[in-house]
């Protein structure tokens, strides 16, 4: 199945008026504005009728895998069921219809929701305050590092380095660098956990913070977290928690108790706001008392039941996005927290750990398991045992797509060769996990009997494997002025 671009379907005549006339006495823009102020060439938007537009997007939708239709075991991404009631809640006119510059007295319900969500997140991760402003996880990481930087500077302490484990998500070093820090890598030991000896050797009065995910990206709990925290704090540095893996232990333990000073959370992972094909998300950041003065403005404050936005925070790092954050996502996350409650969130994490260990058990003889279990909410396998058949992790991923499963995260973390990172989450049934394990067994068998079939996968999707190298060459030719086909947009011509 393919679908032409809207631009390719466009017909000059198929663009009826969409609005009534202005119905006021006023001049046209061309009578008021000078020729230099006016647009010369109309933008090349498509001309299409409504029925054609709806068909177009319905067909595009059918070309997507999504959590609503497929198992999406994408490690580190926590693809769990997105409750439909969340969508209803966010669309309530009392939320969706609010202008961000309405007076505080007219938005008490919105502010109350933000305040309650902040309190709930504080309870889950064990911190003093939370900012809801960051729009995504990476945005939250960067916000936290700005606060840590401001904290050190406020003490006259000029710290220039941030430590990041070699198994960390790529946004960690990028966020640190964009916050003005030099990134120093800390190695993992043979058991997949951070090497305390290496950490010791990297710590110095230059270090502002250690960024850590726990459980780490291998799905393993850093058992020595309390020792790590002590070592880090002893040098005056702070401990930053990357919340990518928070789904592993809600109600079981808390980053704040482990010694983390700043904690970011992904509402689009742990708190079920939908991923939207790549956003919008929300990446709130929780902080301990010593970082509270540096929170972005405004914060939401509650006094005697009355809510206000506090802009008078002289030591704040300022504002990290416009208005108050991705409010619509905050409504969804709050609806989830209310529906699940403390008991439900706890059981969610316990079930997530159970599901991961169960699935790991089902496939432990089919793929390599580079680290000993038990795992937390996800596990990292390796397809290296298929290497002698010439089969790669990517082939396994594509073969899963053919069997109506989305693929696990592959080639991450970088420290495991041919990594296949599986996160089943608590909202997939045992039957689904069994079917997935059966598919893995079938693929592993096929690796031996007919490896070519795996190299040729996927066969059942709108397109087969796309030649990204050739695409990159074409883009380079365009960027070097050797071709007029931008590749990154439609520009007439080839269909």
């Amino acid at each position, binding site marked *: 199945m393919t679908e032409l671009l809207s631009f390719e379907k466009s017909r000059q005549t198929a663009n009826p008026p*969409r609005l*009534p*006339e202005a119905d006021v006495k*006023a001049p*046209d823009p061309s009578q*008021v*504005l000078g020729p*230099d*102020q006016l*647009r010369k060439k109309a933008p090349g938007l498509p001309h299409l009728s*409504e029925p054609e537009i709806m068909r177009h997007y319905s067909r595009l*939708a059918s070309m*997507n895998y*999504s*959590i609503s*239709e497929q198992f999406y075991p*994408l490690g580190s991404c926590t693809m769990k069921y997105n409750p439909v009631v969340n969508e209803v809640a966010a669309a309530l006119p009392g*939320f969706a*219809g*609010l*202008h961000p*510059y309405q007076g505080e007295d*007219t938005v*008490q319900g919105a502010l*109350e929701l933000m305040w309650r969500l902040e309190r709930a997140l504080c*309870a889950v991760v064990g911190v003093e305050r939370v900012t809801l402003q960051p*729009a995504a996880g990476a*945005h939250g990481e960067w916000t936290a590092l*700005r606060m840590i930087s401001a904290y050190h500077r406020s003490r006259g302490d000029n710290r220039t380095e941030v430590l990041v484990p070699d198994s960390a*998500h790529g946004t960690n070093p990028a966020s640190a660098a964009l916050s003005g820090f030099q*990134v120093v890598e800390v190695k993992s030991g043979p058991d997949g956990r951070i090497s305390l000896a290496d950490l010791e050797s990297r710590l110095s009065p230059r270090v502002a913070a250690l960024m850590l995910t726990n459980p780490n990206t291998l799905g393993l709990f850093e058992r020595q*977290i309390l020792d790590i925290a002590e070592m880090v704090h002893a040098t005056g540095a702070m401990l930053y928690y990357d919340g990518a893996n928070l789904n592993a232990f809600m109600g079981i*333990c808390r980053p704040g108790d482990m010694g983390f000073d700043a904690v970011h959370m992904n509402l689009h992972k742990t708190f079920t706001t939908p*991923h*939207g*094909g*790549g*956003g919008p998300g929300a990446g709130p950041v929780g902080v301990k008392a010593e970082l509270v003065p540096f929170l972005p403005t405004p914060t939401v404050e509650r006094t005697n039941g009355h809510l206000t936005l506090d802009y008078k925070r002289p030591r704040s790092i*300022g*504002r990290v*996005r*416009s208005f108050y954050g991705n*409010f*619509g*996502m905050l409504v969804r996350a709050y609806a989830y927290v209310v529906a699940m*409650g403390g*008991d*439900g969130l706890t059981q969610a994490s*316990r*079930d997530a750990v159970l*599901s991961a*260990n169960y699935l790991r058990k089902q496939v432990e003889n089919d793929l390599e398991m580079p680290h000993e279990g*038990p795992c937390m909410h996800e596990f990292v396998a390796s397809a290296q045992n298929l290497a002698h058949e010439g089969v790669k992790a990517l082939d396994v991923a594509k073969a899963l797509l053919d069997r109506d499963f989305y693929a696990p995260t592959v080639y991450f973390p970088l420290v495991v060769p041919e990594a296949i990172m599986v996160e089943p989450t608590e909202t997939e049934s045992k039957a689904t996990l069994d079917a997935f394990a059966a598919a893995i067994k079938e693929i592993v068998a096929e690796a031996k009997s007919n490896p070519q079939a795996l190299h040729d996968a*996927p066969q059942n999707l709108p*397109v087969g494997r796309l030649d990204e190298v050739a*695409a990159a060459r074409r883009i380079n030719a365009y960027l070097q002025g050797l071709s007029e086909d931008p590749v*990154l*947009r439609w*520009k007439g011509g*080839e269909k």
Partner: protein
Amino acid sequence: MPYLVHTEEDRASMLDSIGAHSIDDLLVDIPESLRIAALDLPDGLSEYETMSQIASLAARNRVFPDRLTFRGGGVYRRFIPAAVAAVTSKPEFYTAYTPYQPEASQGTLQAIFEFQTLIAELTALDVANASLYDGATAVAEAAMMAHIHTGRNEVVVAGYLHPEYVEVLRAFGEGRGIKVRQGTTPGPKTAAVIFQQPDFLGLLVDAATLTENAHAAGALAIACVDPISLAILAPPGEYGADIAVGEGQQLGLSPSYGGPHVGFISCRRELVRRLPGRLIGTAHDKQGRRGFVLALSAREQHIRREKASSNICTNHSLCALAASVYMTYMGPNGLRQVAEVSFKRAHALAERLAKLPGWELAFPDRQFVNEFPMRVPKAPAVVRKLARKGILGPIEVQRWFRGLKGVVTFTCTEVNDAAALDELVAALEA
């Protein structure tokens, strides 16, 4: 616990298969001293109770009708075609992940490719990315591009750029070593001149001259634009700006107390490698079928880690989809109609308001599109008076600009029908 699937029997059988007695056996790596007894939160609720609680919070907000909302300042009430929600509420779109497996994500990828093309067309620049968080972070990311491209570390903000965008720019700049200076004259250290067209007050700036001056100083010109206005106003590509950015809320997204909305960014060919975030391009499979893939990812954090030019991972894909549906539905004619109707209504309103006793256009010599500043006696009283009549009145800009005492900005769009204008004027005359 409405969203859990395992029954007690499932759990028992799964534990049995693992060879564990209880889930706690799987949590042995967590030190005992860290374990907590329970979360300090109320127990879960049924859907009915959850919705009653949420609805009661929503009921504590006051929603002004679209047609009686005359407040803008970066977020606007606009007519949103039913097609937008019909598409964005398809679970195949809203519950999909970032399209890492292109063969199983062609719907999202093609939709974003179309978004990139729509934005490039609208701004008349070569290439647009897959979207950013919002207008404010788009300005900041553009400044970063200019900083890397020119090797200079100052950006000049000319005129009334949205004050919250300036705040975000300052916060970003601080981490990245970029100084933000308010002014009009770029110098030898200037990486870019940033201006908003129309500006925060709604006034048109001389974009062509600002662009020329930036270029004369060896700096880039960054235009922060209102996407609807581009149906009638000269787009950045026509006056030679290097980068266009903006907030896309008006393209089919509800105000939603400020988010989620969508930032956009487009640029000239020479700057494409500096673009932050995702880019989608075409590619072909072995059978020669066209498909869409994440392209130029060597710029990005998951490959370049600390050397990446941006830390963006997620964009605002679903909001970009809404904007695409909106622009496709409107088409060039519809979009022009939206802009023209808004323009006319705003000009009709401005003329009537200027006749009120003591009221005047704050900048009578300057042109505007559909948002305009008035100087009024007792601005706070005006806003309160209108609120009592159920009208969301203008913004008092003195909150950000001390020099603009008594200045308020009104916004008019296609949803403020002629009768609504009458109601507004009558309320002010009363």
